[in-house]
């Protein structure tokens, strides 16, 4: 059976690419610290020696639209082109093409349906920065095949937070039941408190530093029950109008497991939003005691 090499949860900040590659007067003052944190984070994936990446993210009204909106969708295709004109325009993101892992995608689709997750699928999916940002930060050589999984954190009505956690648990079990000798890293990205297009956007910090502090603690300590007790679809409006993206972190907590402390935790307080990076090694720290 396949082995989980690492479980990784991260924010996906579309400005990282530009900040990290800019020079001279264009380079923001926080870029060096940000790059240093990302390079340490990247090492947590590199040392896990993955063969395949399951990538959980959320389409930002690129290919998925309100005339036909899936709640959870798995990409099953030999290749995935990536990034869109408006991401190139606003964030300077490069066009990319990633290979797909169709055997694992087919397994997740079949097994997911049999576990009562009625997963939608796409055989021609152009992915966006929710998946390419962690490729850029964690695996910039973009050399590993992926299985993209999209969640709807964007276009209400949304699934309940507990459903995200449950899907995360199921993804973990589904990957572990894949008949393969491949090492799989499961990577998902979301947000802490975030406001987009509202009065609290682009402040000195994220819109709700207290929520961010609690969220980091829930994730780092694997406190799924505590998180579920406080977080609801309604409550997530309060920290910022785009904070429902936190549910992808909750999904990743489900992948990591109740009570599982993260092996790597880091944060960076930026304008507009707090960055947060977590890595778990379910089968022991690579190179350490197993």
């Amino acid at each position, binding site marked *: 059976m396949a082995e989980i090499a690492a479980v990784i949860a991260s924010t996906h900040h579309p400005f990282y690419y530009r900040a990290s590659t800019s020079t001279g007067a264009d380079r923001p003052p926080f870029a060096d610290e940000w790059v240093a944190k990302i390079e340490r984070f990247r090492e947590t994936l590199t040392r896990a020696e993955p063969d395949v990446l399951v990538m959980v993210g959320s389409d930002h009204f690129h290919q998925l639209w309100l005339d036909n909106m899936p709640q959870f969708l798995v990409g099953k295709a030999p290749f995935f082109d990536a990034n869109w004109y408006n991401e190139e325009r*606003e964030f300077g993101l490069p066009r990319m093409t990633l290979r797909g892992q169709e055997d694992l995608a087919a397994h997740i689709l079949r097994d997911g349906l049999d576990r009562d997750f009625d997963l939608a699928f796409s055989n021609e999916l152009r992915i966006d920065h929710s998946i390419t940002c962690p490729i850029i930060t964690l695996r910039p050589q973009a050399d590993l095949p992926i299985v993209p999984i999209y969640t709807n954190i964007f276009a209400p009505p949304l699934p309940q937070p507990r459903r995200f956690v449950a899907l995360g648990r199921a993804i973990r079990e589904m990957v572990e039941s894949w008949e393969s000798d491949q090492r799989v890293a499961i990577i998902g990205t979301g947000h802490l408190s975030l406001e*987009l297009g509202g*009065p609290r956007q682009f402040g000195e910090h994220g819109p709700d530093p207290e929520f961010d502090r609690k969220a980091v603690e829930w994730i780092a300590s694997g406190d799924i029950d505590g998180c579920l007790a406080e977080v609801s679809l309604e409550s997530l409006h309060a920290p910022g109008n785009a904070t429902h993206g936190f549910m992808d972190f909750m999904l990743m907590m489900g992948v990591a497991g109740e009570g599982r402390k993260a092996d790597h935790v880091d944060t960076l307080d930026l304008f507009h939003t707090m960055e947060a990076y977590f890595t778990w090694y379910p089968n022991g720290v690579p190179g350490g005691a197993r």
Partner: protein
Amino acid sequence: MSKYLLDKFLYTVDRDPDLVERYREDPAGTVAWWEAEMANTILNCTPAERTTWLSFTDAERTALARHDHVTLFEMGAHPFLTLTLFIAMFERDHGPLEYQKAYGKAMEHLSLPYPDIAT
């Protein structure tokens, strides 16, 4: 009121470089053209398979024609779509983050709960 159609306008304009420029330069004309020609196009269907019933209210048409992002927010248009498109149109006229901050400040009178964006 059709939040869906407001979102559809913002979405289809934002993803098309020519329409972004056209909407920036001639908002009223672009909105009128779009409502006549594009509003009832189903994006994943051939042009002949058109919808028959979508149109803006006067208030929606006016908000779009005035580039009035505050009213669009109050109407429940999806704030991500509005923000992304308006940054594309107007960030170029301002210093770094100046437009984004002014965009938020123009809405500082708004408080929770924000308008429902469900379509």
